[in-house]
């Protein structure tokens, strides 16, 4: 575990190595990603350094205030001794641009689990934090979430090589045009629309079904957890607030002690760590697989239908009801030539159908393989991240206990002097 340095401005006593500031706990998670060492990350360091307010006209020509975030990139070479690190390249991006990037990635890499963005609106409000998007705490949480997003994409073996992503980090002006030029938005309609449709796949891959169940359970559990966590924090705050009243009764000094305790609790950042793991994005992969499977089955169905038609023509038996069949029955048989040409056309159609089916099969296989590889990678990453988060959470709890002991020990000393 990392040792906390006493030079930090946060109120954490440095006693043993279970003390850690929130910045360091975030770094731990980032380290687990960076360890992956993609080509991109070997080249550059990425961070979302600051946030700033801008005003401008929006699409309906009204004045609006929005927040922009500063993305810094700098080359990853270590600095020589005595040297000054080179100034980073910087550009500003707002949340909607991040959203655009993510949509592009979703569409372009359907078999990959795309990392999530931080909440659009403050959903799990703790301690009556305003749900205002300009609230500084909210902006800070967002900044961290956006940085995590970029780092996760940058540490992904496939996504990190995407050019649009690279441009996002380096080209402030022309990026929007470049994204739109990829034409991904056409695919957006068909692919993303079908994501929200309900499919009934006949022979679903069991692994994907299991995965889907798991991600359903996981997202339920996590949103439960976050809700209760907010309530628990509120209650605890209530307990400490009442304790502060003691200060009034006893003496001025005690008041200070109890108030200090309060501010510590209040300033502890919300567990962004747990917030990060709304694994809602998990589900989109499973849906995509269903889509491919569906296409596959449609093609197979098509082929079967065509085969049956051929058989019917060849044997003259009406297996499948068709208008043509009825009319021919009613109005007389076709000539042999007509029938033969029909059969030939049908055979060609069948051949095409079989080719298409083969293609779809191959496509599906490839998709499954790629998706499954990515899922394995994701699982591993998730386990690591969660474990880090739990460790940080435990450390925070320990820190709070130590604070509590400190406060009450001081109080005890005061009492002993009575």
């Amino acid at each position, binding site marked *: 575990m990392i040792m906390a340095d006493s030079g930090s401005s946060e109120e954490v006593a440095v006693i043993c190595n279970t003390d850690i500031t929130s910045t360091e706990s975030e770094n731990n998670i980032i380290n687990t990603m960076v360890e992956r060492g993609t080509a991109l990350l070997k080249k550059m360091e990425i961070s979302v350094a600051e946030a700033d307010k801008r005003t401008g006209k929006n699409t309906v020509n009204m004045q609006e205030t929005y927040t922009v975030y500063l993305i810094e990139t700098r080359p990853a070479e270590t600095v020589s001794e005595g040297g000054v690190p080179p100034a980073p390249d910087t550009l500003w991006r707002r949340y909607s641009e991040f959203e655009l990037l993510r949509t592009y990635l979703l569409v372009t890499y359907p078999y990959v689990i795309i990392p999530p963005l931080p909440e659009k609106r403050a959903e799990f409000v703790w301690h009556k934090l305003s749900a205002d998007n300009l609230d500084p705490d909210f902006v800070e949480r967002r900044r961290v979430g956006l940085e995590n997003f970029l780092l996760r994409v940058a540490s992904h073996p496939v996504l990190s090589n995407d050019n649009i992503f690279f441009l996002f980090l380096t080209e402030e002006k022309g990026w929007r045009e470049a994204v739109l030029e990829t034409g991904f938005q056409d695919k957006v309609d068909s692919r993303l629309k079908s994501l929200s449709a309900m499919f009934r796949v006949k022979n679903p891959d069991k692994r994907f079904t299991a995965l889907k169940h*798991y991600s359903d359970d996981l997202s339920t559990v996590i949103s439960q957890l976050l809700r*209760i966590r907010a309530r628990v924090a509120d209650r605890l705050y*209530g*307990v400490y607030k009442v304790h502060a009243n003691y200060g009034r009764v006893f003496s001025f000094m005690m008041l200070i002690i109890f108030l200090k305790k309060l501010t510590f609790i209040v300033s502890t950042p919300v567990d962004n760590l747990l917030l990060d793991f709304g694994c809602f994005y998990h589900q989109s992969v499973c849906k995509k697989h269903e889509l491919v499977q569906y296409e596959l089955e449609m093609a197979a169905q098509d082929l079967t239908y065509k085969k049956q038609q051929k058989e019917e023509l060849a044997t003259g038996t009406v297996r499948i009801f068709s208008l043509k069949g009825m009319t021919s029955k009613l109005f007389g048989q076709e000539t042999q030539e007509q029938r033969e040409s029909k059969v030939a056309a049908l055979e060609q159609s069948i051949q095409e159908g079989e080719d298409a089916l083969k293609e779809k099969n191959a496509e599906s296989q490839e998709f499954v393989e790629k998706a499954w590889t990515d899922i394995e990678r994701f699982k591993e990453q998730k386990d690591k991240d969660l474990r880090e988060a739990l*460790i940080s959470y435990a450390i925070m*709890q320990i820190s709070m206990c130590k604070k509590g002991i400190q406060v*009450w020990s001081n109080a*005890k000393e005061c009492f002993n002097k*009575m």
Partner: protein
Amino acid sequence: MSVGAPRGLASSGQKLITEMLHPLSAAEEPPSPGPDVTVSAEEKEKTSRIEFDLPDYSVRRRYQDFDWLRIKLEDSQPTHLIPPLPEKFVMKGVVDRFSEEFVETRMKALDKFLKRVADHPVLSFNPHLNAFLTAKDLNKRQGLALLTKVGESVKHVAGGYKLRARPAEFCAMGEYLDTFSQKLGTIDRIAQRILREQSEYLTELREYGAVYSSWAGSEEQLQRPLEGVAGCVTTSCGALEDLSDNMSQDFLPVLREYVLYIESMKNVLRKRDQVQAEYEGRLEAAVLRKQEDRTPIPVEVEKCQDKVECFNADLKADWERWQRNKRQDFKQLLTGMADKNINYYEKCQAAWESLITLLQEKQTEDKTSETELN
């Protein structure tokens, strides 16, 4: 199981030790229910005082008996501060009068009462106390008519006299008691609010732990860590429950007891005022008569003066004693509260620290297996 720790009395030079045993553990007969019965407490008393023939005594007493003793003490020693008893009336249905916690709390308070009385240089010699501790059957209807001289006379203080000037020190006492009583009330209210908030916090915390448990069910690698977290949360819940219980059983009763103590003390102060008023009234009347027809100041007036002086002296001495004891009691109470809180945090900390060890072990396991693969 003995509850009160034996204490020697350095101040009065006696070695009177009173222990109270848990009624349920030592009882041979079950407590007899009656119209206003509460509990029966068994006491063992060891004394080396000459007045008692036998070295060990063991008697059974009911709350009623304690009440009787206190009334007798008040009557016979009206110039002294008599320690309070725990509350007499308990609302049925709100508190279970036979629950272990209630019995325990009451017993501790009764034990304290006896110790304080036994500790008092004057009260401990009171014959009613003797009877209380030794008589097989307290025949209360007999009403031992053993009032002290002062007691006798104070009992018959005539009312209707108005006090002119209360000596400063007694004013100060009264004011102090008022302020202190207020503070105690505030602390009581705060403590109750804390208990309420803590109990709501506890409810949420339990639910929180349950979510982690159910999450653990759907994970593989993370199952043990998540169950670990659930375990820590459960431990915290248990520790918090202990803390809350302690507050309601040990902390609050003492506060309330002191409030009662203050009430009875204020009564004594009022009586003192009355005695002084009577004396001043009579003196004034006597002086006037003397001026008119040269009648000497009656003996009664001098007796009144005696009364006043005795009362003041007794009260002052008792006040000093009370202040000392109060300081001691509150020091103990508050440091006890601090200790319990520290205890609570230590338990929680230990739980989380052991979890970290578990989690970090897993981490190093993973890391070594990774490097092996590479």
